[in-house]
């Protein structure tokens, strides 16, 4: 998992390597400073040697500036490395998602993908920065400071040998106790958010049934739970700072006591060993050592938290698109003929859960084909196999005489335009939206497509006409208008096959008829497949497919089906009832 993520560092590798090196330099300087300081005290101030004091003072200032430079540059490289890494992660994920097939997309909910691309990447970015800086600094400081302390006075430094396990063990215990509770709290947060979200979505229900009190109680139950658990975890964490103080004070007292003896022995002479200056240095080291341990425990927690995020990111990166163009792919679709031969399909790729079963269809180029059937009869599934949005589980789907799996996917989809049932427009102008069909479409082409789709008539009534801004999801146009724009967008592709999946349901019958007439007259060579609820939308089609529960129940024209097919007749009469009266 880690390896997979680290591959995304790429061009920022140099910064990712420089950072720990610079950090190491900074840590070394930081450890050096207290030592030089002892010289300043012992040989300078103690002896009243002002010249020496200044000399060492300048040396110290120099070391500080070097440390500062190391620190600053490591900060900069760390920022470059971590943000670059995060940006690469987002890039790789997004690119990967663009290659997903429909079944890959179905696997993740849009909300979860968004979270992975945003929150999860942020967590990993922070952890990465943390690792290159603090996770390097803390252990190095620990090692440097301990070895410096030992070189100054090995006997005194045994104090650290005693304290480090106490503090380390204490911190470990605290994390071990508190961490599972925090995990629990995170889950409770989800629960709380769920209560709020349901309440917000269903506020009309809550208010209509006058259930505010009950909702309050529900919320209070969870928020009390959070309070209890969070307090419990935080109370454990409250031991952190006293434990730290205890260790520090423990060191100071022991060092003071033993150092006093050593200093007395040496006569506070630097040449004989222990001095007051070195005593101060050791106390500084004590603080550095203990702080490093603290930081280490912090890093440890950070990494544990971000591990889950890293896992979710890798899931996206690891998801293999199950639909890819073959080698030596065919780039040209000869014509708009379609053949289904013994096609079975299951979303779960499970023979016992077939959505389509034994489908055989022969559609000639330029034909208009209607598909009728209730919800759950797999109308949409059937047409999704044509531009290879999904692969048939068994059997073969052929377009222009070749199995769809032989084509280059892009070429195939350029020739097969689908107006999806759940269609969306994107924020941007009408023109920009329509150009999805053809990137370099001229204004005339756009207008022509809109005329065919009966969209021109209302677009022209907008003040900004084709430059009218569409809000996200097409919120500022009506359902019928949206559908017509989506059809125009598909028409701009000038496809060999055009599939309309219930795409005129919100369009009135007169306009619907006008659109169909335009199709007939203007794009006679394009194969048109129309899924519809309304019989009137399909009754003039060359053939109509009646789907029932994933099987082709019948194929024929309107007249034939009316005569012989009971399902078709039932739908027809139910829709004609009003008009007959």
């Amino acid at each position: 998992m880690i390896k997979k993520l680290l591959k995304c560092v790429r061009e920022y590798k140099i910064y990712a390597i420089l950072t720990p090196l610079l950090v190491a330099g900074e840590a070394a300087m930081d450890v050096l400073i207290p030592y030089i300081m002892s010289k300043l005290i012992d040989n300078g101030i103690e002896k009243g040697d002002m010249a020496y004091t200044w000399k060492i003072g300048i040396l110290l200032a120099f070391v500080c500036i070097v440390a500062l430079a190391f620190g600053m540059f490591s900060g900069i490289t760390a920022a470059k490395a971590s943000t670059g890494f995060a940006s690469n992660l987002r890039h790789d994920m997004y690119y990967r998602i663009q290659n997903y097939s429909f079944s890959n997309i179905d696997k993740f909910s849009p909300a979860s993908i968004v979270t992975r691309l945003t929150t999860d990447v942020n967590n990993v970015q922070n952890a990465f920065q943390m690792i290159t800086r603090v996770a390097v600094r803390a252990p190095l400081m620990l090692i440097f400071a301990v070895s410096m302390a030992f070189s100054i006075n090995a006997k005194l430094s045994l104090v650290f040998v005693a304290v480090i396990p106490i503090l380390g063990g204490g911190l470990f215990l605290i994390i071990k106790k508190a961490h599972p509770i925090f995990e629990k709290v995170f889950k409770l947060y989800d629960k709380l958010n769920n209560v709020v979200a349901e309440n917000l979505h269903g506020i009309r229900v809550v208010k209509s049934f006058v259930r505010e009190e009950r909702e309050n109680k529900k919320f209070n139950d969870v928020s009390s739970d959070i309070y209890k658990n969070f307090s419990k975890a935080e109370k454990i964490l409250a031991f952190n700072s006293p434990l730290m103080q205890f260790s520090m004070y423990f060191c100071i007292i022991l060092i003071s006591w033993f150092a006093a003896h050593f200093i007395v022995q040496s006569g506070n002479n630097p040449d004989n060993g222990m001095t007051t200056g070195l005593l101060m240095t050791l106390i500084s080291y004590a603080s550095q050592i203990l702080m490093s341990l603290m930081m280490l425990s912090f890093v440890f927690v950070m990494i544990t938290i971000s591990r889950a995020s890293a896992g979710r990111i890798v899931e996206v990166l690891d998801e293999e698109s199950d639909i890819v163009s073959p080698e030596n792919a065919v780039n040209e679709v000869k014509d708009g003929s379609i053949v289904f031969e013994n096609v079975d399909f299951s979303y779960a790729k499970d023979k016992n859960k077939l959505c389509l079963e034994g489908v055989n269809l022969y559609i000639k180029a330029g034909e208009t084909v209607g598909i009728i059937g209730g919800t759950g009869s797999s109308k949409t599934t059937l047409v999704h196999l044509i531009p290879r949005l999904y692969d048939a589980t068994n059997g073969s789907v052929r377009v222009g005489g070749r199995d769809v799996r032989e084509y280059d996917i892009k070429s195939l989809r350029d020739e097969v335009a689908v107006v999806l049932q759940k269609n969306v427009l994107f924020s941007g102008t009408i023109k920009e939206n329509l150009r999805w069909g053809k990137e370099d479409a001229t204004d005339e082409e756009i207008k022509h497509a809109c005329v065919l789709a009966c969209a021109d008539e209302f677009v022209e009534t907008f003040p900004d006409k084709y430059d009218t801004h569409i809000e996200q999801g097409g919120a500022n146009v009506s359902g019928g208008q949206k559908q017509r724009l989506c059809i125009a967008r598909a028409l701009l592709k000038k496809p060999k096959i055009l599939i309309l999946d219930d795409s005129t349901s919100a369009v009135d019958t007169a306009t619907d008829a006008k659109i169909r007439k335009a199709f007939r007259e203007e794009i006679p060579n394009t194969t048109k497949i129309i899924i519809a609820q309304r019989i009137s939308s399909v009754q003039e089609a060359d053939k109509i497919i009646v789907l029932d529960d994933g099987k082709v129940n019948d194929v024929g024209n309107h007249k034939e089906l009316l005569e012989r097919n009971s399902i078709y007749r039932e739908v027809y009469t139910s829709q004609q009832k009003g008009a007959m009266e």
Partner: protein
Amino acid sequence: MSNVNKKAAPDMKKRPKIDFKIIGRILSYIKGKYRVYFLIAMAGTLISAFASVYGIMFLEELIDGHIAPLVETVLGGGEADFSGLLLALVKIAGIYVVGIVGNFTCSYIMVLISQGVLKKIRDDMFFHMQTLPIKYFDTNAFGDIMSRYTNDTDTLEQMIAQSIPQIINTFLTVTIVLIAMIKTSWQLTLFMFFTIGCMLLITKYIGGKSGKYFMAQQKSFGKLDGYIEEMINGQKVVKVFNHEEVSKKEFDELNTELRENAKNANKFANILMPIMGNLGYLQYVLLACVGGALAISGAGSLTIGGIVSFLELSRSFTRPITQVSQQINSVAMALAGAGRIFNMIDEPSEVDDGYVTLVNAKYTHEGKLVETKERTGMWAWKHPHAADGTVTYTQLRGDVRLTDVDFGYVEGKPVLHDVSVFAEPGQKVAFVGATGAGKTTITNLINRFYDIADGKIRYDGININKIKKADLRRSLGIVLQETNLFTGTVRENIRYGKLDATDEEVEAAAVLANAHDFIKRLPKGYDTMLTGGGANLSQGQRQLIAIARAAVADPPVMILDEATSSIDTRTEAIVSAGMDSLMFGRTVFVIAHRLSTVQNSDVIMVLERGRIIERGNHDELIAKKGKYYQLYTGAFELE
């Protein structure tokens, strides 16, 4: 989330500001027993700070008072006596222990306070939200409200639990340290103020830069987030249009912008610490030299121990200031979030001056309607008259009359004009018309989600403004297109309509709604858990449960707002059977765009741009060959 970012984008150019009013508001949550706790915590902090300062001062005593004399004694050929030092160490150990106890008390109690305050704020926010009028929910984006519970509360949490205790601690420690420093050497203290001033200037500069980029980073993040959300939701369209390459390119642009801003924000945040830390060291060096000069020259009566402890004090002075200064940006962010939370808490609640209430009632032997305690199944409006102190009772029947109603959501933009509708008990009234014609608005007015601008609405002859809102709504059942089931079992969801419904009542309602059969077939029957709004059920099944939920409440008036719109014709047959039995014997308002649902209504109102343009039953309207006829024959677009 993206919504928030988008909205907040314009004022994100400048660096964040600290709003002291909001701090005061947060602190005002510390009351009652928390105030006592707070004082104890303060005392603990104070003790702890004293102990640590004392510990540093002890270095002076250690060196000047113990080690130096001992060294001299030994150098003078005497015998070293460590008993004095031992005593001093025992004494300091005692002080340390007190300090640690103080520290622990403070940390522990701050947990109680911060978590208590957070819970209170959270509860306040939610409880208050329940009292807000529907208008608030209609005019604020879902993500916007939601982010107050997530992002804003999260940052606030960080601040209350960590930053505030730290800031208080810093303030106290720094004060005590300052006193100790002045006591040790006022000359050095003065000198130190000069260096601290320089450090603060640098912090301000870098902090400002970092804050600016931080805001820019948030803004780019919002942009990218919005883009991803839109594209991922339309990913299937992207696929069928081969739009992947364009989408990648656009993404890359936003991604690069975010990277640049994030890089700068992180850069400045990262360099602040080493700069401050090393300036701290530099200051230390300067102090040592200046102090050394002072000590050697004999001015200011500084001793070696004095310098050493002053140096340590200076570290204790700058370290906490550095740490706090690092947090200014995040504190400002948290305060902005808290501001949004308090804005919501300050939103005015829905007003309810209704005084007519709904009570259980029965007829006495003399045929008089009286109030009773037990549930009779009969309800009455209890109408107290302030003028003469009498109380009258009117039986709840479900007679709803709108007379000349005008209404607009926004002033100056009327949505309904002169709407008059009379629904007698048991009648079924349907509204049809295009999106935006005002169908749903009418039902919003009947249950007083919104109040009318002009005209009258009477319920059983009583002006609905006089009826207590909760009781009015209790008397109206509602089934919407969005079913809005809640996480819980099927049984709990049905019982939502009547909290004290017995299992039998729940099942009876399910039978009535035609839902019993499929519920029985669920893995755990009525105890099947529903999550994600009933995602494990089909749309039709969800709607049947929603109908059962309304049925168990058994209200005399029902509002069905597009209840069957998203169900296909086949499922509709099952649902409408449930619907029909639900409607039986009740006054019903139906809104539907599928006309088959409304055909058998007693009266159908055709709405256009807020006016009723046609009314009559199905046959009458068909015969009229007007708008309804056009709609019916499909010659006119509904959506």
